[in-house]
């Protein structure tokens, strides 16, 4: 296969300019980054934790670190990878803290709060766009998915969610998790297959 060099597109050039402005701590440039990544980071933390409490704080902490660290960002790797590395590190710190001072164990975080409370997090989300029936179906599907996600180990959950929300390459996941690329591939595959089986057995 012949490898051809890819010329930078207008989008790439605009992004490079944006990052250069963000490195100068231009608030408008950082706003664009927030618009681009806030919801994906929110989804990542929400699905990692299984609850919404504290998710916003974690997303805020990611952006606080971005403000502090972006002047040193070297632009060699993809920005997504750099950003979600910060998110993954924050999440790892959170898990370590929980393990040192366990208030509620990770596996119990949903059960101890009660299914009703968890369901309330999703209620009315689709009311304006969907029929009550489809709304209920979607809620049920998301609740079921969250239950299954929480049954994965934190490592398995992390790789699946880094792929989905972070849109990281396998090589980037391998680097972040300090594993060979084959291990990263196998881990993602195994985790997704496990999830699907759990979901199928729940329905």
């Amino acid at each position: 296969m012949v490898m051809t060099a890819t010329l930078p597109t207008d989008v790439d050039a605009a992004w490079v300019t944006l990052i250069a402005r963000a490195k100068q701590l231009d608030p408008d440039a950082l706003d664009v980054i927030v618009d681009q990544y806030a919801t994906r980071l929110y989804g990542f933390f929400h699905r990692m934790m299984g609850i919404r409490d504290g998710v916003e704080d974690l997303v805020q902490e990611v952006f606080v670190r971005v403000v502090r660290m972006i002047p040193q960002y070297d632009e060699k790797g993809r920005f997504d990878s750099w950003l979600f590395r910060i998110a993954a590190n924050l999440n790892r710190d959170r898990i370590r803290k929980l393990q040192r001072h366990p208030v509620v164990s990770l596996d119990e975080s949903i059960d101890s709060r009660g299914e009703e409370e968890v369901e309330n997090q999703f209620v009315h989300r689709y009311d304006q766009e969907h029929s009550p029936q489809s709304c209920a179906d979607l809620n049920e599907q998301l609740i079921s998915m969250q239950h299954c996600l929480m049954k994965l180990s934190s490592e398995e959950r992390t790789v699946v969610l880094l792929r989905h929300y972070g849109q990281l390459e396998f090589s980037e996941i391998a680097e972040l998790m300090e594993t060979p690329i084959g291990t990263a591939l196998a881990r993602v595959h195994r985790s997704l297959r496990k999830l699907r089986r759990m979901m199928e057995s729940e329905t």
Partner: protein
Amino acid sequence: MSHDSHRKPNAASEEAWLKEQLIDEEQINTDFIKLRMRIEIEEQWFGQQLQDDILPDAADALRSALRKRIRQEIDTVQVDQKRKSRRHFSGWPRWAGGAIAAVAAVMLVVSQSPKIENTSSTDSTEWLSAFEAYATDELGVEMSDIEVELSTIANALATLDNPWPIDDWSAEPTDIDGYDTTNSNWHEKVPKRSGGVESGT
């Protein structure tokens, strides 16, 4: 595949070996492609499960809160940067950094001296050996580590921003922070502003 199968054999069996490698590589590529395809299918399924996962109104509130927080943090970082730049010894020449590091080294050694055995010797080599033994045995640090740390401090101090804020860089400084530097022993004297040049302690 075992590690041995990658080892190149002698010329007689080279062709067979090459074929074997080719087959292995094809197998590896095929396995990789199969795995990637399986993952792709699973990921598509997973994406469907989590479609429209974010609340639009919650996303707006989140973005608004984040923008506010980012501006606060920018202010904090910029104030911090200004404070740091004010702390720089902007009127000091470059060699001052090295001098401070040297003084720090002496203070470090002196501060530890009561704890060092056999320090009655006036031989500096012996004294340093005693200090090295103390540092290694009692403090658990190697002299090379201390040297590295001191060199880092010296380098950092020597590269301070705006070390000599005068227009004419070729001119010798005659007054540093109140000291008369035209006197060869200026560093041993008390500042002029405290009442003339007197001998220090």
